[in-house]
């Protein structure tokens, strides 16, 4: 899901200076109309999507009401549906993924944009773009055959023996679960963070750096105190792009999360996510209420993405009001 909202293109200062017919003949108005339609279609698709999800989940919404968000029983036979474990699983795996991916991704982007020789930076960027284009099922396979055994045999026992006093690292280690799903998601979203953040960092004007260096700061000080804050908005954008991908990821998550609707403080515990349960159960869902409960889950996922994106916008506005790029240097 794209974080940017497409706005209607402004026709610019030309508007009003010529008659409508004139503009039409010269193609301006036609171009304006066509591009407007393209932009409007994005909004239209979103509205239709919400309408379809809302309309097709009416039975489930009426039957369960707010209890859908509060209860954790998911029993297709008894037709009792509660979404809480799935919401929990979606949020926890996305949080774990960002916890790992954000420092790694931004660190790598800073190196590529500021410190690495241009040639090395371009070569690495090629590989990063390649990683971003790998289908998610491939990451799932990688997860099953490499990450899960690594987790079960080495990482989880190591975490248990060192940080085992924390509730996060207690319980039996199966290899599959919240932590593994978070790690696989982190691997998947890091390329997004690196790629976008690197572009943003590289587009910071040269004079910002030169001014910082001129004032006597070191290379690292100019990077960390001037360039990174200047690019803050764009970097945040890359993080939210990564978050959106982590929330909606289906295939790779379902292959490594354990597919058990549980709410547990332990990251070793198997769990379930919204996207995974929809993918798993949709085709075999018999009975209207069951199907509608799954569609309502889709609505919940949409809502989660919407809320988190909204928070992201607010955060971006709030931080840029503190004078990003205006009062520095």
């Amino acid at each position, binding site marked *: 899901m794209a974080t940017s909202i497409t706005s209607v293109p402004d026709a610019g200062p030309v508007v009003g200076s010529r008659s409508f017919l004139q503009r039409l003949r010269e193609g301006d108005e036609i171009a304006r109309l066509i591009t407007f339609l393209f932009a409007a279609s994005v909004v239209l698709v979103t509205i239709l999507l919400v309408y379809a999800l809302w309309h097709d989940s009416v039975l489930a919404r009426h039957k369960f009401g707010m209890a859908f968000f509060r209860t954790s029983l*998911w029993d297709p*036979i008894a037709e009792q549906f509660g979404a809480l474990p799935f919401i929990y699983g979606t949020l926890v795996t996305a949080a774990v993924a960002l916890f790992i991916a954000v420092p790694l991704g931004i660190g790598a982007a800073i190196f590529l944009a500021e410190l690495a020789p241009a040639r090395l930076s371009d070569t690495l960027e090629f590989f990063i773009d390649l990683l971003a284009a790998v289908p998610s099922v491939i990451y799932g396979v990688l997860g099953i055959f490499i990450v899960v055994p690594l987790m079960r045999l080495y990482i989880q026992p190591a975490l248990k023996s060192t940080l085992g006093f924390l509730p996060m690292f207690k319980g039996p280690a199966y*290899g599959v679960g919240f932590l593994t799903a978070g790690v696989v998601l982190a691997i998947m979203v890091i390329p997004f963070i690196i790629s976008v953040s690197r572009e943003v960092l590289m587009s910071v004007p040269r004079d910002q750096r030169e001014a910082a260096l001129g004032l006597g700061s070191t290379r690292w000080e100019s990077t960390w105190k001037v360039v990174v804050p200047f690019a803050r908005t764009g970097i945040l954008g890359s993080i939210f792009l990564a978050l959106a991908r982590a929330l909606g990821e289906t295939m790779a998550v*379902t292959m490594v999360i354990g597919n058990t609707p549980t709410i547990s403080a332990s990251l070793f515990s198997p769990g*379930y996510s919204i996207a995974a349960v929809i993918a*798993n159960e949709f085709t*075999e869902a018999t009975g209207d209420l069951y199907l509608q409960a799954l569609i309502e889950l889709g609505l919940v996922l949409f809502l989660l993405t919407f809320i988190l994106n909204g928070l992201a916008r607010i955060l971006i506005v709030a931080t840029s009001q503190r004078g990003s790029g205006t009062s520095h240097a």
Partner: protein
Amino acid sequence: MKRIGTVLAVALSLLLCVWAQGALSITGAGATFPNPIYTKWFDEYHKLKGNVEINYQSVGSGAGIRQVTDGTVDFGATDGPMNDEQLKAYQEKHGFPILHFPTVLGAVVPTYNIPGVTASLNFTPEALAGIYLGKITKWNDPAIAGANAGVNLPGNDMVVVHRSDGSGTSYVWTDYLSKVSDEWKSKVGKGTSVNWPVGLGGKGNEGVSGLVKEQPNSIGYVELIYAAANNIAYGNVKNAAGKFVKANLSSVSAAASGAAKEIPDDFRVSITNAPGAQSYPISTFTWLLIPEKIPDAAKRDALKGFTKWALTDGQNLVESLQYAKLPKPVVAKELKALNQIQ
């Protein structure tokens, strides 16, 4: 110029011929379990009758039932028979009933991974129900060890694996557990997806067998055709006659023969825990769902013709793909029922 015109005319007439030949296209959707044999059947039948082309989407039993009820496909296919509610919904929507036709047989087998144990384990119904209810948590539990004298079973915690996606395989497995355990029946029930009391979920047969391979001291269940195709070792299950039976083509067919005597007229019957000393107890039919009335005469004849062929000559193709043949009395009864389609 003239030559080009001739070539074009020939090409066009050829195209028209092909188009007229392939004019009869029948679409179906449903179960994934019989997809390999259905694909083969449709292909072979197309070679026999060039004018009939059947397209099948293996979208899952639930989706198959939905699509045939909505009328978006000509026939459906399912691993678990439609329930009374679904039949009623169909009748109300179309004004006539939909018919079930068993096509082949399959089975579900328990598979496990216990380090150091290579013997083929015996499972009692009580042990399987206990394991999946979460009451039996260790391999050396008397309920398992009692049926496996001489096998050195470890005292480690067991990892239970089930299907995470809705599937006919889970339907058969839970149908069996419901028959042999009252507690399972009242607490969990049978269905393509259930609220599993314990265990990890794997997506598809490959997901379950992958988790079983990966986790020491684990148990899971997969389709017989999958286990056979991938050389996965599996256990024996105690049948209704008290014998431990290994699933194979003959023990699965035996289960159908055991149940065939009392097969109802609408063929909606579960053959899990079937009587007979040779019967493998976790076996199942898989069904085609065909509307009783098909207004398009050409389509009706083609679909009836295909079903008849699949039940007779087509049965000779099934064993090469590890499906079990239908017993003769069932085929005879089905051929009679085919006449109901008008």
